[in-house]
């Protein structure tokens, strides 16, 4: 026998379908937007975590804004000081990787572009190696040439002028991109990328998951930033037997620098962009409330239309609990169908978003799917409360004679 709640749903296919669709859209929005907001940040955090280092050392005034800020730069003396920091005669850091971070527009979107010495590039890549091509300026020829130009004796008022052609000829305009950027911008080894007023040549492709999407020689990044010899921050690897707190204390002992464990970067990122979650969650909540109000109205209308049938059930000896269970069950079927549809819908929605915005990551997680299902169940029960209350208050004698 077909259960009565299901029979009622199937009898009013359009109305039931629209209700379920409302829930489906709300659940899809919940899962997709949560996946989008959190997924993109998690993806950035994942990429930073591939860096082969323990601490990020940066000027104290930068605070925790590591991703986009360039409030302060570190000079060569500070870099040298960090490199040579010692604690009880033991070197604090085994190695340091200086990087210079730019925000450049590539393939229609701004990206962090990191300048790094060719020999250090592998430490910022997933797996440590390139997928195709080669490292930029592999013999450090450009960096040496530029250093020579900068350190050559000159008159006080002489302006050092290096043309883009010279940069290009010396290997300064070489770039390594990750495979996601390569795919989105149709780049391959040998492709030209116009950004920051210069035309770079792609010489290598890194596997997706590298710290940033594009890398250039450190010397180029410094030169184009107008800050030769200065860096944005350092990735530092702890020396043998040195623990993190001791290393952080040692860095902070310099007074002008501070350090944060690389493992804390994810939390910093989430804190920094946490307000975005508030907006997204608020939008999701409003959408869900509207969807469940829709279910409530559908059920309420159904109950009003079915007062005589409810009276018939009561005349047959159905208890109020039985009637209540029928209405709640109907709501749960509608919302369960909506939730299933919403979860199914969230996958093509995510694919659509990633196709339209190739650098966004929509991470549809099991956690948010479970959340979507739970919200649908709770919303379904909540939406059925008032209609069910109306149903059990039906005056049987009056309703049984309704036309």
């Amino acid at each position, binding site marked *: *026998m077909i259960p*009565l709640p299901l029979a009622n749903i199937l009898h009013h296919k359009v109305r039931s379908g629209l209700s379920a669709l409302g829930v489906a859209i709300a659940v899809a929005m919940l899962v997709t937007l949560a996946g989008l907001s959190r997924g993109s940040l998690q993806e950035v955090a994942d990429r930073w975590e591939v860096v082969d280092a323990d601490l990020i050392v940066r000027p104290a005034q930068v605070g925790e804004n590591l991703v986009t800020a360039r409030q302060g730069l570190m000079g060569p003396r500070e870099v040298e000081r960090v490199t040579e920091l010692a604690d009880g005669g033991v070197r604090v850091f085994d190695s340091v990787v200086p990087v210079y971070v730019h925000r450049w527009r590539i393939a229609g979107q701004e990206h962090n572009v990191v300048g790094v010495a060719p020999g250090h590039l592998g430490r910022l890549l997933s797996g440590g190696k390139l997928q195709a091509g080669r490292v930029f300026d592999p013999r450090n020829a450009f960096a040496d040439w530029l250093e020579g130009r900068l350190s050559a004796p000159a008159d006080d008022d002489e302006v050092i002028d290096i043309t883009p052609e010279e940069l290009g000829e010396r290997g300064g305009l070489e770039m390594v991109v990750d495979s996601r950027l390569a795919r989105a911008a149709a780049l391959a080894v040998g492709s030209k990328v116009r950004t920051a007023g210069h035309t770079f040549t792609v010489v290598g492709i890194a596997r997706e998951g590298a710290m940033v999407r594009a890398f250039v020689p450190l010397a180029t990044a410094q030169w184009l930033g107008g800050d030769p010899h200065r860096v944005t921050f350092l990735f530092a690897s702890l020396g043998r037997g040195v623990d993190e707190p001791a290393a952080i204390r040692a860095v902070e002992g310099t007074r002008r620098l501070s350090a944060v464990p690389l493992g804390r970067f994810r939390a910093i990122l989430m804190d920094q962009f946490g307000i975005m979650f508030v907006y997204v969650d608020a939008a999701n909540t409003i959408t869900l409330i509207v969807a469940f109000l829709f279910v409530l109205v559908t059920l309420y209308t159904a109950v009003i239309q079915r007062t005589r049938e409810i009276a018939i059930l009561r*005349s*047959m000896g159905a*208890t109020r609990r039985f009637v209540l269970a029928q209405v709640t069950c109907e709501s749960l079927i509608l919302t369960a169908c909506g939730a299933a549809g919403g979860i199914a819908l969230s996958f093509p929605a995510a694919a659509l978003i990633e196709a339209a915005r190739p650098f966004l990551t929509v991470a549809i997680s099991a956690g948010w799917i479970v959340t979507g299902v739970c919200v649908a169940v709770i919303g379904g029960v909540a939406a059925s409360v008032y209609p069910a209350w109306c149903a059990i208050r039906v005056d049987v004698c009056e309703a049984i004679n309704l036309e």
Partner: protein
Amino acid sequence: MEESECILEARGLHKSFGRPPAREHVLRGLDLRVARGEFLAVMGPSGCGKSTLLHVLGLMAAPDEGQVWIGGREVSGLGEADRARVRRERIGFIFQRFNLISVLSGYDNIRLSLRIRGAGDGDEAVAALLESLGVAAAARRKPAQMSIGQQQRVAVARALAGTPELLLADEPTGSLDSANQQGLLEMLRWANTAKQQTILMITHAAHVAAEADRIVTMRDGRIVGQDA
């Protein structure tokens, strides 16, 4: 009539609707006894309180005063859940407008009734019942796809399913043509004789009431006469 034979009894029933000054006093101290296995017809003009009496006797409405006894037990003072249980276990209703659930097939209407009564699906019994009432094929359809006569037969089958000891019928022939009226009365007589079910039938049609063992006449909320 011996006390032990009485399955249904109303003692001093009063029932009013509305609020003063528009309060309508529908049942005015009504007394009635129905013997087990009896086929009783209650007649009376429109508005005399017949349907209200049926609702009170069927525990769908509580009397303002007085008592209803079923099977030797006072039931009108029971709570809602207990009254539902008595309806479930002992009473079957047949209504003038059939009152089948429109979204279910005839079969499923009966199965639902059995489930509510806690008697399971009873597929074979349902099929046999519908077969005996001549609507086995029609009952596979939804009520809107059945003729009036078929709907009424399915409604009777639903009331008979689970074999409740008491059948309360509210103007069961009111929507039927004369051929279907006769068929329905034969079904009720069959239930009464073959299944030993007690029947209380409300009607305003004398020829329908004539099929019963006993006829009581209501006027202004009271029983004013009876014919054996």
